[in-house]
């Protein structure tokens, strides 16, 4: 019987897994070498001592709890990740307009003060501006009245969703686009080899004639 086989038998004895056959094998080995019993005794004592040492070294594990704050933070983070992933998926297939709409709907942060888009309104400009939303409303109303502002693009570009510290909701960052109209008489482009300057360093501009695009159809 090899040393390794004896080691296996001793390990089974130490761990209480030895069968009658294992014991017979160990006793047979011990008749040839009495040192087997000594090795077994030492191995048992080492095992007991090592158990005690490992137990003492790892007893601090009971003090390492998952704090409620950490769990909550992770939970919020997971929710935000899911939300951003959903928004990205929708953005890929349906554009940012839908993504932003879904994100805002999920967050329940619909802003009632957001000005409506589309047809011109004739709401008078408020006398005092209590908030930024009021100021924007005033700008849109005045701009429409002057024919400068067409309205606000219905899609909002979602830039990011971040959980707020302490789990107090989310910070949603998005861009709103205002459509304006400006009357111009001519278009110009930079002259002098596209540099925009002549040989004396003066700014040059070349008028551009704007024509309807001709769409050629296949013959």
């Amino acid at each position, binding site marked *: 019987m090899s040393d390794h086989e004896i080691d296996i038998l001793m390990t089974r004895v130490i761990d209480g897994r030895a069968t009658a056959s*294992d014991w017979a094998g160990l006793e047979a080995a011990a008749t040839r070498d009495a040192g087997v019993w000594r090795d077994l005794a*030492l191995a048992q004592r080492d095992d007991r001592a090592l158990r005690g040492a490992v137990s003492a070294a790892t007893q601090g594990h009971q003090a390492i709890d998952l704090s409620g704050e*950490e769990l909550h933070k992770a939970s919020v983070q997971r929710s935000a990740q899911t939300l951003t992933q959903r928004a990205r998926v929708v953005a890929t297939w349906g554009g940012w307009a839908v993504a932003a709409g879904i994100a805002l709907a999920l967050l329940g942060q619909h802003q009632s003060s957001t000005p409506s888009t589309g047809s011109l309104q004739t709401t008078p400009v408020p006398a005092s501006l209590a908030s930024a939303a009021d100021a924007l409303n005033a700008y849109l109303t005045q701009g429409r009245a002057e024919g400068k502002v067409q309205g606000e693009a219905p899609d909002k570009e979602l830039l990011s969703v971040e959980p707020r510290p302490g789990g107090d909701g989310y910070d949603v960052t998005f861009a709103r686009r205002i459509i304006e109209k400006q009357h111009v008489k001519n278009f110009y482009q930079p002259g002098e080899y596209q540099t925009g300057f002549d040989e004396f360093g003066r700014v040059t501009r070349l008028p551009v004639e704007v024509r309807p695009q001709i769409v050629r159809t296949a013959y």
Partner: protein
Amino acid sequence: MVEQTEKQPVRDLAEDALASVAREPLGSELFVASAMAREEEQEHAAAIGGDPASVDKLWRRHRRWVAAILLAHKPRWADLDDLLQEVAVSLVRKISDVRDPRAVRPWLRTVAVNAAAAAARSGARRAKDVQRDDAAPELSRSASENEQEIAIGRHLLALAAEMPEGYREPLLLKAIHNLSYREIGQIMGLPETTIETRIARGRRQLRELAAAASIRPGPAEINIPAPTDPGARRIKV
């Protein structure tokens, strides 16, 4: 004849499971073990799904052996509790990345091994830690048997650091109360029979290291916990 399994490292898992079943004394124990495994799997699935209570329960169930893994892999000067805290944070933040509830144990082991490896790389070794860890416990002849055993245990733990990881890790996991070969195998992703072989070899290595270091005073006494013999036998050597 003792079964030689390490010569066949790639054993059929089913064959390995059958060998384990053959060693189980009672069918009812198998049923209980199976029920516990199912319960654990459900708990893991809930934790992966993001249920905070299940994540907390999972941590409480596994943190002790995670501590043993860290103990087996960390540099001597690194603080075990700090590393354990890191693993706990990783568990909370990344458990949802695990796809299979049955893979939670090996995943958690990998997290622990990586945390220990990162600590070793950081190399932020402080003088007081070195002094504390390298200080060998004194073995006095006048010390009580219990005190001697504690001192020997500390010596053995220090000597275990000199063993190859493949032997040290299962040996320290086995030193955790109630952790079976099967559970150690699940954690390390190895067959139960390989675990037995490694523990056997690890014990011999540790015994030889201890003999070389001359840390044992007095004779030892064999305590025989043979399941075939209800009355434990004691042999003085």
